[in-house]
């Protein structure tokens, strides 16, 4: 019994989620007049940024692995 997803799969999942969250966050931004949707937009933005950073970290780890690997 082991977890069936590898590091790269998680990275892909993070990438898809980050894109969805970033686009949603931007579309719901108060700067475009969307002031009537009642969700916590600051938290949505923070979540989107955090997920993006997590994805970029996985990419960085991958790149470092490629550089270090013989």
């Amino acid at each position: 019994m082991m977890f069936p997803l590898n590091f790269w799969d998680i990275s892909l999942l993070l990438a898809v989620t980050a894109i969805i969250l970033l686009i949603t966050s931007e579309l719901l931004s108060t700067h475009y007049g969307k002031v009537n949707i009642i969700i916590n937009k600051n938290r949505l933005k923070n979540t989107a940024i955090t997920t993006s950073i997590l994805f970029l970290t996985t990419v960085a780890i991958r790149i470092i692995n490629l550089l270090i690997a013989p």
Partner: protein
Amino acid sequence: MGKNHMRTNSAKLVYSTLITTGAAAIALSIIFTSSILAFIGLGLLFWGIIFTYIRTEEYTKKSLLDATLTSQITTCNQIAQELDYKGTPIYLPPKYFKDTKTLKAYITKQKETKLPTPEQIQAQEHQTFLKNPPALLLTPLGAELTKLFEKILDTDFTRTNINYLQQKMPKLFIQDLEIAQNFEIEPENDIIHVKIQNFQYITPSKELDLSPSNSFALDSPFTSAIASALAKTTGKPVVIEKQQASQDGKDLTIDYRTLDEEA
């Protein structure tokens, strides 16, 4: 009330279902070594957590706010009218009071009267009806809002300047309070122009009697709060010189004037 309670419960049910299903799918994916189940599980778990985190804050219907506020504005207005106070509300800076956290508006009996001295106000700052000079000293409608602005910005307006307001107020109105699409402050000598676009809090004073004598009713809580903030920031008494609203009331232009003590 019952409907609202049901809505909260159903929202909680959705979050918890997502999280539980996600966790179950991950557990099953480990047992059956299925990557598809793992993807579904992680996805559900992730979205469940995100929905729980970004869920709706506590909101109150605007119609309810208007209903509670309208009677207060009417009362202030009636007091001013009945007692024949004709002056324009002057938002006094903290130096007029012993307690610097006090925010008050001063309405004179006569239309054109000299500004009182800080000592005159300090001597009778706990009274509503002042005798010397004859005037009303009321807590403006936006006093608590000004305190909320300070709380959100984590500052005391008395320690800031007009540049600070120019930088911070747009963010406060657009991002933090989510009540307008654009907000500008432009000082020009003793006049400070404030422009608010797509303002979501249309003043309930629109439904009230807006005859020229009802100057106090014209000041909505937000215009009043901005006036109080300007009085605190500039350290000078402030009056609302001119207010203009678009047809739908969503675009506002307000001119505030700072008064010099000698005036």
